[in-house]
């Protein structure tokens, strides 16, 4: 036997004269390996893919297979055939139907619950009340304030009081009707401003941490920079008081859950959850069983948007009923119940003051945000911070003052919703900049371009900003929308407006902070002799395509087609812990974890190939299902051959990879809120048509540029951008949770809660900007939430451009806008709104200064991106500070304060007045 033949036979010795058998795992189509697509291989690796901004740490892993190519979701076939199983599609044999008894009162003490009639009803199997589970839970460990069902008090209409499991839905509903609850009605609070005052019976009692005797759940005070002189230096100031109505996620799938307590004593909970891990923890707390006895099975999720990211009381109810009855219990919400559980965007009063100085710099942002948390804390702690800290970029600012407070009221709880905490205040900032630009007589895009933070810089609050594609986003939308020929030049009723966004790509500090440095995301890979790669991940695919992204990442590194990757992401029994689908963290963290696991397998395969082919590892490259010598592609082995060699003496290859954020940020209280390993940026231009005689606004076109670092799957990124436009457009024009005079929520259905239909949707031109983030997987950042932010202010500003009228309450429904049109007409003494003047712009001298500065900054930014300038850059340099040192270290007038001064407390603003109370523990009683 020749040497060559010997090599080919490694591992599978064939008897002489017999037909060669195929390797186990062979078969299938495409018998030949495709040549490497040089267009997809980065320049840094000798390929043809342009890298204007330099290389990336993952470049050497690129095989040109799938990353960067539009890829349909790996589970799309399940969805289009109706075989995808969502919460209510889980049907277990012998199941019971669960229904919930809900409070008809805003705020009441539960005096007694009479179950006798319901228990006598044939077909009722078990009933549970608050007495069955008294332990509190909540998504944030510091604010656990929810019970499975009311213990002592109900806190809003629709709050859970008891639950029933029966043989069928009709019987369960009848049992609910037969349960007689006696209440003592307490005085309820509906206006969030009342929540700031002392109350006889606060909605929650936080013990020694309670703030005064008020309903303030969380308060924040932050002052950074040149606070004292910002108003003196200003030549233009914008002041506005906003009110943002609450909005709901309105995911098409109502919440549903199935709990099954199996004969071995383990609980399996089937639930459409964004964050299975937190439910897992909460179940263990509430049911008092160890986590290893619980398997949380994430079903397909019919839309989350933040609305399925809390551990929910109905999930506890189903589990309790299943334990009591010994049978599986299914609870499905009707649409109305979705509004009772809510967790939508906070109704907010936001006072936004911006100041600009003579050089056209943003010398101060003052924000005061009072947000209505409803009856429970949910994510509110974080939301209170996000309303302020997430507008400290992308602009360089001279001073930042933020006072925020979240209060409890007797409404369904607000929580996290797409663009968590950042959306409303971002809208206020961007509209403010539009107004400032008008006062300064400059183009608002020029104003923005001349005030951007550079790449690799630190914000005023100390966030580490790495890649920034903001400048490119602005330039692209300006060009594509023909901005220069439209802005302030269109006739009455037609307008164009700009808005920008900035959002976190994952949160730097995990919610469940552990001193043990657990990773944020972990991915396990397993490859057996069949060659298929099984990926175990806990990341929850909620439709955004996280399964697809993780499959793409693994396929890319190993040079495999997607059909060889199998994603197992459903069960906590088999998936490693992942912190869940929120904070736009999944692509960034989970793909990073997947890459690090795949790198270990890659190394095994390269070692095996090196051994078989006698080639040094450095000479080998991975192509389509084949590993070969770069200098002589004919010398190489198939993927399966390398795999089988690597499996000798060892069996299946398994690898684990994890991602944890690097240490970042400053040390002041609250410094971690808003801290992220990377940030996304976006700029949208919206073109609208406003009917001045009716106040009706129609968005005609949107140019939407989003910097997502790198689009791993451009199809999904575009889908996220367009989908974000849809959701943001709803909030700005039609969606609101309407509370009546007595505090009742009046539109608990999709007829009265108006989400845009296909006819309301404008034509959206998604523009993907790739800034190649150094920390992101293959350079990627988030694309799920950030794209929502700019659409609100872009539309608001476009409405102003069209008719010269600003609204300060969202949504801008026709009636609201028409009232403002009437007001403007009265002010200008015009009878017919058709005679309203449309705003026009005459440039001041400042325009030229800004354009010049933006050109200079453009060069500065390029140098910093290309790493020819690697000096640190701290916010403040634009105001003459040394960019390399945090300004507070050199200048005493540059503040870093998180406690209000006595002087401030003499005349606090609205949310700031929360600081007039003293925490109980500090009262010395």
């Amino acid at each position, binding site marked *: 036997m020749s040497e060559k033949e010997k090599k080919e036979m490694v591992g599978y010795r064939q008897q002489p004269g017999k037909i060669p058998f195929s390797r186990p795992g062979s078969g299938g189509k495409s*018998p030949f390996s495709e040549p490497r697509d040089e267009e997809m291989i980065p320049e840094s690796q000798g390929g043809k893919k342009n890298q204007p901004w330099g290389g990336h740490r993952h470049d050497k892993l690129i095989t040109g297979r799938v990353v960067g190519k539009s890829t349909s979701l790996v589970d799309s076939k399940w969805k289009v055939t109706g075989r995808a199983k969502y919460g209510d599609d889980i049907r277990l044999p012998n199941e019971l139907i669960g229904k919930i008894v809900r409070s008809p009162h805003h705020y009441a003490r539960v005096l007694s619950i009479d179950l006798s009639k319901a228990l006598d009803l044939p077909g009722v199997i078990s009933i549970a009340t608050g007495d069955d589970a008294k332990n509190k839970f909540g998504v944030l460990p510091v604010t656990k304030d929810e019970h499975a069902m009311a213990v002592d008090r109900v806190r809003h209409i*629709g709050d859970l009081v008891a639950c029933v499991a029966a043989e069928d839905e009709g019987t369960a509903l009848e049992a609910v009707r037969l349960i007689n609850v006696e209440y003592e009605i307490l005085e309820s609070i509906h206006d969030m401003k009342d929540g700031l005052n002392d109350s006889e019976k606060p909605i929650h009692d936080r013990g020694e941490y309670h703030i005064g005797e008020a309903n303030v759940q969380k308060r924040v005070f932050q002052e950074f920079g040149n606070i004292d002189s910002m108003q003196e230096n200003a030549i233009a100031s914008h002041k506005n008081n906003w009110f943002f109505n609450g909005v709901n996620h309105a995911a098409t799938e109502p919440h549903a859950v199935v709990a099954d307590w199996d004969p071995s004593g383990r609980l399996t909970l089937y639930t459409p959850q964004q964050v299975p891990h937190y439910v897992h923890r909460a179940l263990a707390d509430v049911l008092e069983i160890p986590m290893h006895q619980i398997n949380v099975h994430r079903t397909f999720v019919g839309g989350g948007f933040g609305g399925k990211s809390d551990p929910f009381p109905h999930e506890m109810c189903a589990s309790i009923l299943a334990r009591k009855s010994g049978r599986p219990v299914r609870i499905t919400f009707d649409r109305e119940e979705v509004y009772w559980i809510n967790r939508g965007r906070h109704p907010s009063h936001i006072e936004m003051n911006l100041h600009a100085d003579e050089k056209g710099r943003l010398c101060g942002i003052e924000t005061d945000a009072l947000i209505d948390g409803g009856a429970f804390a949910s994510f509110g702690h974080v939301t209170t911070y996000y309303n302020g800290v997430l507008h400290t970029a992308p602009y360089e600012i001279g001073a930042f003052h933020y006072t925020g407070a979240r209060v409890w009221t007797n409404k369904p709880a607000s929580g996290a919703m797409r663009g968590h905490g950042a959306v409303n205040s971002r809208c206020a900032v961007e509209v403010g900049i539009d107004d400032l630009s008008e006062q300064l007589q400059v183009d608002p895009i020029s104003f923005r371009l001349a005030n951007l933070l550079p790449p690799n810089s630190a914000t005023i609050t100390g966030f580490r900003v790495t890649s920034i594609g903001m400048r490119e986003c602005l330039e692209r939308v300006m060009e594509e929308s023909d901005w220069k020929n439209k802005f302030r030049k269109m006739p009455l009723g037609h307008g164009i407006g700009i808005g920008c966004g900035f959002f976190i790509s994952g949160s730097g500090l995990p919610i469940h902070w552990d001193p043990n440095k657990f990773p944020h995301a972990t991915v396990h890979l397993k490859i057996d002799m069949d060659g298929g790669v099984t990926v175990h991940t806990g990341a929850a695919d909620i439709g955004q395509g996280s399964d697809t992204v993780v499959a793409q990442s693994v396929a890319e590194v190993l040079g495999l087609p997607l059909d060889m990757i199998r994603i197992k992401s459903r069960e906590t029994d088999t998936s490693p812990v992942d912190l869940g689908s929120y904070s736009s963290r999944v692509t960034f963290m989970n793909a990073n974890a997947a890459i690090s696991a795949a790198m270990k397998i890659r190394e095994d395969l390269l070692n095996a190939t090196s051994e078989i082919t006698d080639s040094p590892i450095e000479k080998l490259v991975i192509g389509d299902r084949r590993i070969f010598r770069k200098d002589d592609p004919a010398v190489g082995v198939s993927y399966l051959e390398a795999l089988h060699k690597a499996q000798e003496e060892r069996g299946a290859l398994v690898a684990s990879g994890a991602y944890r954020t690097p240490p970042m940020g400053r040390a002041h209280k609250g410094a971690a809120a808003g801290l992220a390993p990377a940030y996304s940026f976006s700029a949208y231009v919206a073109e609208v048509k406003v009917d001045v005689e009716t106040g009706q606004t129609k968005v005609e076109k949107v140019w939407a540029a989003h910097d997502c670092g790198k689009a791993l799957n451009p199809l999904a990124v575009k889908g996220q951008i367009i989908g974000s436009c849809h959701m943001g457009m709803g909030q700005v024009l039609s969606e609101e949770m309407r509370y009546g005079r007595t505090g009742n929520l009046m539109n608990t259905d999709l007829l009265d809660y108006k989400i845009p239909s296909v006819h309301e949707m404008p034509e959206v031109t998604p523009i993907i900007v790739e800034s190649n983030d150094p920390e992101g997987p293959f350079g990627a950042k988030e694309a799920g939430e950030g794209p929502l932010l700019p659409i609100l202010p872009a539309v608001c500003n476009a409405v102003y451009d069209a008719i010269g009228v600003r609204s300060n309450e969202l949504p801008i429904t026709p009636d609201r806008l028409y009232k403002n049109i009437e007001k403007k007409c009265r002010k200008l003494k015009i009878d017919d709104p058709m005679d309203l003047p449309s705003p026009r712009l005459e440039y001041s001298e400042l325009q030229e200064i800004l354009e010049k500065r933006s050109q200079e900054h453009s060069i500065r930014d390029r140098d910093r991106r290309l790493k020819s300038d690697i000096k640190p850059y701290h916010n403040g340099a634009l105001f003459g500070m040394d960019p390399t040192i945090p300004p507070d270290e050199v200048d005493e007038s540059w503040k870093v304060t998180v406690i209000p001064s006595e002087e401030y407390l003499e005349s606090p603003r609205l949310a700031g007045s929360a600081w007039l109370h003293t925490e109980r523990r500090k009262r010395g009683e």
Partner: protein
Amino acid sequence: MSVIRLPMLPGSEKIPWKASINGKLISKPIESNAILLDVLRDQVGTLGVKRGCDMGTCGCCSVLIDGKPKLSCLVLAQEVSESEITTVEGLADGHHLHPIQEMFGEYGGSQCGFCTPGFLVVISALLEENPTPNDSEIKNAIEGNLCRCTGYQQIVDSVRAASELLNSGNTVSNSTEPKSNPNPGFDE
């Protein structure tokens, strides 16, 4: 509010009901006031028909009744006794997907996928009636369906692509086709 709901105890009498569902004759005793959506989900087992709102606003429960798209949450089951009903499960021909099913995947018409079955049956009826719809015809056809993820644009893209595929005479891929061989050769 659940507490003020009228009693819904199952009636004692059931009436016979039969219908052809996705080409299969099904006969079941049902309650006289049973809603078609409940019958399809709970008794027939076509769980691809989704319940989103129960009041005809979201379109997730759309099915074809004798070829016409209808909201099954607003139809009494006994009204459509003896009818031909097509749900999303009935769109594919064996392992050959309907062109709109194929294109929904390819053009991103489906994200979370919950509204997808409703859109698919409505669009399949549109394409049946009008194989080359223009944009406004597409929008009019899907105006009763709400989607919270895609912003509709990629759904409209999918319909256009499906229409092209349908008229090109090409068939869609068969999902049982062999998949990639992990042991490929080297072809110079």
